[in-house]
């Protein structure tokens, strides 16, 4: 046999990752060669993990080379399993324990101001993603992963969903375009994934196909929780069909727009003013609002220009969006600060909420502020503003106890 299965990354700039070469053999036992940057402190533990994986896949004769640049166990395990499975067919999976905190369930209408894209085959960027407190993190299998690396990235993402603590961020995965992306669900559904982003979504049919696969897997793996969907509208056709997509199923919670592909589809390009995408953005906002779900804006790609980002976020908020993607952790705070309600908004919302409570306490059917009548949708919006203000740190949780 002269087959070699490889996975992972090597080179002098690689950190928190490893490179694995697997060559099966018919005799000669296991030849495990580990070259680790952290050998003095974790050499034994890496060898032990490697043996466990080989045991699971019942591989008794093989050469295994591991060049380790400080990879955590979940990364090592993903790389080793991917290298083996490039050669050996097996339905077994080597699964490390699922963190308890990864079993929490995110609400359908959870805040989704910010969601941080993480390239699906770069463990280094995943480790500390949660400490920057995005509302969600997106483990990306699509554009940020080279075609040759998509196979191994699935194992890495599966393991990250089990082993990595994202400190309360919603754990999202962007799959590849349907139908290719349908194969990826078996790596995600059993791992308590919260939300799936469906790229280049163009019809309700895409959503139905996705839900069919999800429901089969949910039954098979006894997953009770719902898995939320965020279709991404990235084409002229998608924009036209956006209401149909937004209402395709109950687990569609947001509608996102991806402007790079959309402008390419139109035959134009993105500008800072965004005139070319005004229609599409408004259409997506309208479709989402009509369906009662969240409209989410495209990413802003200049990571060094925080002022331009802030302007962009303000425009986005005015158009009616509820959130935006980020490609760098430093964008998160700017996005939160600018989506967060402004001081004047908060003050007004406080008055309305207090008036509403007073009316309720008095058993009045009508809420009024001064001489003005307040309609129920206005009260609802004010309550939402207060929650947002608390969540973004602009208002103390116990603000009411401080009011007259």
């Amino acid at each position, binding site marked *: 046999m002269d087959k070699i299965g490889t996975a992972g990354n090597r080179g002098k700039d690689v950190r*928190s990752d490893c490179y694995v070469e697997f060559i099966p053999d018919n005799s000669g036992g296991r030849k495990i060669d580990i070259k680790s*940057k952290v050998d003095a402190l974790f050499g034994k533990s890496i060898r032990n993990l490697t043996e466990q994986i080989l045991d699971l896949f019942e591989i008794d004769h093989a050469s295994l080379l591991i060049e380790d640049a*400080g990879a955590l166990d979940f990364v090592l395990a993903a790389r080793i399993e991917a290298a083996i499975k490039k050669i050996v067919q097996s339905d077994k999976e080597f699964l490390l324990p699922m963190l308890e905190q990864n079993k929490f369930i995110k609400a359908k209408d959870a805040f989704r101001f910010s969601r941080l894209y993480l390239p699906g085959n770069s463990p280094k960027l995943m480790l500390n993603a949660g*400490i920057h407190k995005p509302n969600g993190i997106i483990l990306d299998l699509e554009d940020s992963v080279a075609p040759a690396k998509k196979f191994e990235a699935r194992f890495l993402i599966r393991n990250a969903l089990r082993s990595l*603590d994202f400190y309360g961020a919603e754990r999202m995965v962007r799959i590849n375009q349907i139908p290719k992306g349908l194969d990826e669900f078996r790596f995600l559904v059993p791992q308590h994934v919260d939300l799936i982003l469906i790229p280049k979504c163009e019809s309700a049919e895409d959503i139905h196909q996705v839900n069919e696969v999800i429901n089969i897997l949910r039954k098979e793996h006894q997953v009770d929780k719902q898995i939320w969907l965020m279709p991404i509208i990235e084409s002229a056709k998608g924009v036209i069909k956006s209401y149909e997509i937004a209402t395709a199923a109950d687990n569609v919670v947001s509608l996102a727009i991806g402007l790079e592909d959309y402008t390419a589809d139109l035959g134009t390009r993105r500008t800072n003013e965004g005139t070319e995408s005004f229609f599409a953005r408004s259409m997506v906002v309208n479709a989402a609002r009509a369906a009662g779900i969240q409209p989410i804006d495209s990413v802003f790609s200049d990571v060094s220009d925080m002022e331009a980002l802030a302007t962009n976020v303000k425009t986005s908020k005015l158009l009616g969006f509820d959130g935006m993607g980020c490609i760098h952790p430093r964008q998160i705070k700017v996005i939160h600060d600018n989506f967060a309600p402004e001081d004047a908004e908060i003050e007004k919302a406080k008055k309305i909420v207090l008036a509403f409570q007073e009316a309720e306490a008095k058993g009045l059917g009508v809420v009024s502020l001064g001489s003005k009548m307040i309609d129920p949708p206005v009260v609802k919006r004010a309550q939402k503003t207060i929650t947002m203000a608390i969540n973004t740190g602009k208002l103390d949780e116990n603000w009411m106890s401080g009011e007259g």
Partner: protein
Amino acid sequence: MTINDKWPAPSNKKEKQDRMKKYDKIVKNAAGREVPTIINSEEHIPFMGVGKFKPTGRRYGPKLSSCADYPDDGNKVVKDLRDALIKAGLKDGMTISTHHHFRNGDLIAKQIFDIAHELGVKDLRWYPSASFPCQEGLIEYLEDGTINRIEGSMNGPLGRFTSEGKMKGMAILRSHGGRYQAIQDGEVQIDIAIIAAPTSDPFGNANGVEGDTACGLLGFALADSQYADKVIVVTDNLVPFPCIPWQIHGNYVDFVVKVDKVGLPERIISGTTQITKSPDRLLIAEMTAQFCEKAGIVKDGFSYQAGAGGTALSIGIYFSEMLRKNKWKARFIRAGSNKYPVQMLEEGLVDYILDGQTFDLEGVRSMRENPNHVNTSPFTSYNYHGKGNFASQVDVVILGATEVDVNFNANVVTHSDGYMLHGIGGWQNCLFSKCTILPIPLFRDRIPVIRDEVTTLCGPGELIDVIVSERGIAINPLRQDLIDKTKNSGLPIKTIEDLKDEAEAICGKPEKIVLSDEFVAAIKWVDGTVIDAVRKVNS
């Protein structure tokens, strides 16, 4: 027993042989670390506790000189460095000192030992104020016996060489202040000091602010000029007497050498003198600055130390924002200066920069042009055997560390695998500030930074007040005042044990490393006592 006591002559052959040993007579010091008390045949005192060792005796006195032996016209210029070294009497076993103001752009150290090698001189002790990767070429001379050992800070390849037990003598690492103290106390007697100077006159008055290769100041060479037997100034910008300002006084100088280029100032700037772009480190910097704000440390008239290192520099940016917002002004910044503190000085956010070394050319320019950008030396800032120094007057210092243990002891010299890869610099001296903060990631690659016990003890935990990591802040229980002030600050305050557990939950618990029994380097505390010894790495 004091450092200055003369070591009595050996009374018999065995005692004489013992004295020749790399190290001997191992004891447990007050920090519980095993250290030799004889190092390179000289007696050293084990660490006794912070502030416990009191020196007696008088400062070391170099030999007296007479003007009769120096030219009346003040011209001390000799043909070249080789000529100067011969005239200075270079011979086996001497101590040769250099400074590191050019950092990774030093051109002179290698030339000195090239000449020594050509002359067949052996067993030299090199006593730099710090070493840099550009001096990797000296390994050849450590191998062939031209250099017996390095006593100074060891960085990069030289640290690795030493860790692997390849150096003939035992290395001794000292802080910047400890280096001045060792010279002043006579613990290290310099035979020949070579001072690379961007500008000098023929008399030997020299400075670092003028000339094409300006590197800022020459403070690290001050003690060398004052106490060495022979002093050689090497310059590429020879100006007529008087060279003003005279940071180094020609009255201490024996010979002046003119070369084509004395150093590469563009290589003063290293990776550690740029603001970090890493989002994780920026977060740690932001949390550190917020801690200082909530603890009431940042206020009108406060002072801080901005060290090298991307995180420390970023904290300075956050401090500026706080000063600006509150219309406050800091009294002084202790630097390591580069363009960031310089901007603050020029914007009026701070009255003075007290500068020990310039880290970039903006720092050099500012020191040349701005009288409030003051050059300092390890004598004024750090020397522990003086009548005070200003390190303890600084309100807050931000330092790095390779490891910290659950008792807040910290290591700045070795990595967790035992390899010695960094010098001490001013780190130990800065610990005496009113508040010492170490902003550090909880783990690097997969290696947790908070350990049960540090691999090498460089700073006692009683002097380290706060650890700021991306996953939480730990305050030393000795600082109840800081704990009280930040109790309801909304900052993620945790215990150091919690932080350690958190890192180990992510990385796994590291195995205990096995090092050799053999010692390769001693770590000095600021008072000249031995706080720890570094063991050889099993390669």
